[in-house]
């Protein structure tokens, strides 16, 4: 600060390089935290309640609740909490900015746009963690489930989170009408919670729906996360990594294209 303000003869700060990017990233993280300060506690509580609620609620409804079902429900709840903020809340927040007219202002901030995206991914990690732990805790406490956490948890959760967040980011930025974004996200909630075999075995679905899910990102997310938390339940994990990797690449490129676009 002192060197920057001490002399007016100095040239303007160079807006490039790793240091500038890192500083921008930190600034954007602080910006988004401040921006969401009212929403953040509620979101975390809702995430926690829905994670725990899913495990306990279906526990009530399923009469012969086995440890296996509990494992599916709790690992599924982990995945749901990981993606719901990125895929659902992300686009909705962007849609709100567009509706309120503050969207262009955000883009005009003197920071690399990628640093803003990175800050958003980081924030999602912190929002997702309480819900994840809550779901796992509920399964351990209520159904005596034991988990077998392997190191693969890092790539599995990382890839799930990044893919989900970038997917939501692409939808939010690429769709210009806020109403349409709202509609897409509501449809996605339905697909994620109901029609994707995240919290139940894929064999429970009719054949055609199972086939579709092999190519959508949500089942692979659940499969790789389940593989990293348990032993011997997940099958065809390599395939899931490949499908998920392709979705990560695709949504990453769309996000990059959107980020680079100028009016």
């Amino acid at each position, binding site marked *: 600060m002192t060197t920057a303000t001490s002399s007016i003869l100095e040239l303007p700060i160079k807006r490039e390089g790793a240091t500038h990017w890192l500083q921008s990233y930190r600034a954007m993280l602080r910006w988004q935290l401040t921006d969401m300060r009212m929403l953040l506690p509620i979101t975390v509580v809702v995430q926690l309640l829905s994670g725990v609620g899913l495990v306990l609620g279906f526990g009530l409804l399923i009469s012969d609740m086995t440890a296996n079902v509990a494992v599916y429900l709790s690992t599924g709840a982990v995945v749901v909490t990981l993606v719901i903020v990125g895929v659902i809340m992300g686009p909705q927040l962007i849609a709100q900015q567009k509706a309120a007219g503050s969207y262009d202002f955000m883009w005009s901030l003197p920071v690399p746009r990628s640093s803003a995206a990175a800050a958003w991914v980081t924030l999602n990690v912190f929002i997702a963690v309480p819900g994840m732990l809550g779901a796992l805790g509920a399964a351990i406490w209520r159904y005596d489930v034991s988990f077998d956490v392997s190191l693969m948890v890092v790539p599995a959760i990382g890839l799930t989170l990044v893919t989900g967040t970038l997917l939501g980011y692409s939808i939010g930025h690429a769709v210009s009408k806020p109403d349409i974004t709202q509609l897409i996200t509501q449809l996605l909630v339905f697909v994620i919670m109901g029609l994707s075999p995240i*919290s139940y075995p894929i064999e429970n679905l009719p054949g055609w729906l199972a086939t579709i899910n092999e190519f959508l990102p949500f089942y692979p997310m659940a499969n790789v996360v389940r593989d990293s938390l348990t032993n011997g339940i997940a099958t065809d994990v390599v395939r899931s990594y490949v499908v998920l990797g392709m979705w990560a690449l695709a949504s990453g490129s769309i996000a990059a294209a959107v980020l680079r676009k100028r009016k």
Partner: protein
Amino acid sequence: MTVAMQGSAVRSGWSYWFDSYLAMVRFELINLRIFLASAMLVQVLTGAGMAYMYGFYMGDIPATAQLFIVTGIPALALVPIGLVMVPGSIMIHKIRDTYDFVWSLPVPRMTSAAATFTVFTGLALPGTIISLLLADLYYGVDLAWSWSLIPALLLTSLMSTSVGFGMAHAIPEPRFTNLLTNIVIFMAILFAPIVVPIAQFPDWWASVHRVLPFYHMAQVIRDSLSNGLVESVGTSWAVLGAWIVGAWLLAGWVVGRRK
């Protein structure tokens, strides 16, 4: 209505009340036309959609459990109309500041309430039947249809509409109503004995549900669609009746209140 061209019409008596009632039904229908179309979609998605989803989540389901799911679906499909859409339609008035305007219309206020009950009770029925048929198609269970289905559906629909109406008018802050409706949906889908026997629930939670309306809604409808699954259905009719009376007392107090 057209008789009163000169002077001021007499604003009392049965025919005046009835005319006002018809006018308010028309007013509600026109006011909510777009809302009503999406309401049916939401209803079928919640009703029939949940029937499929319970199947996905639960995996291999025995025949009796399937029958429980299918006969619980109509009750589940009625919840979003009465306890979400009705409060929603009133919330919109509050948010748009048209709430006081509706109260200022020159009709007896009770006709406005009666019109809301009529429109939403009627509106809820097609979506409920569609959901039931879709669920039945998926599970292929043998339903024992009986005529008591008609009063059962009307009563449960009227009950949820009345409770939603009383609740939304009594709570001044629309955001709080919104939160409450979200809790209600979460509760109905995951934590209520609508699609499963109440015996499956822990005792303390089962006793909570003997007071709340969800369980009794499912009971009276299930009784009219099956044989031997439901005991003491009279109690359920009585509890639902009590909820209606309670909701109407609340509505009467809210409606009669002046600023």
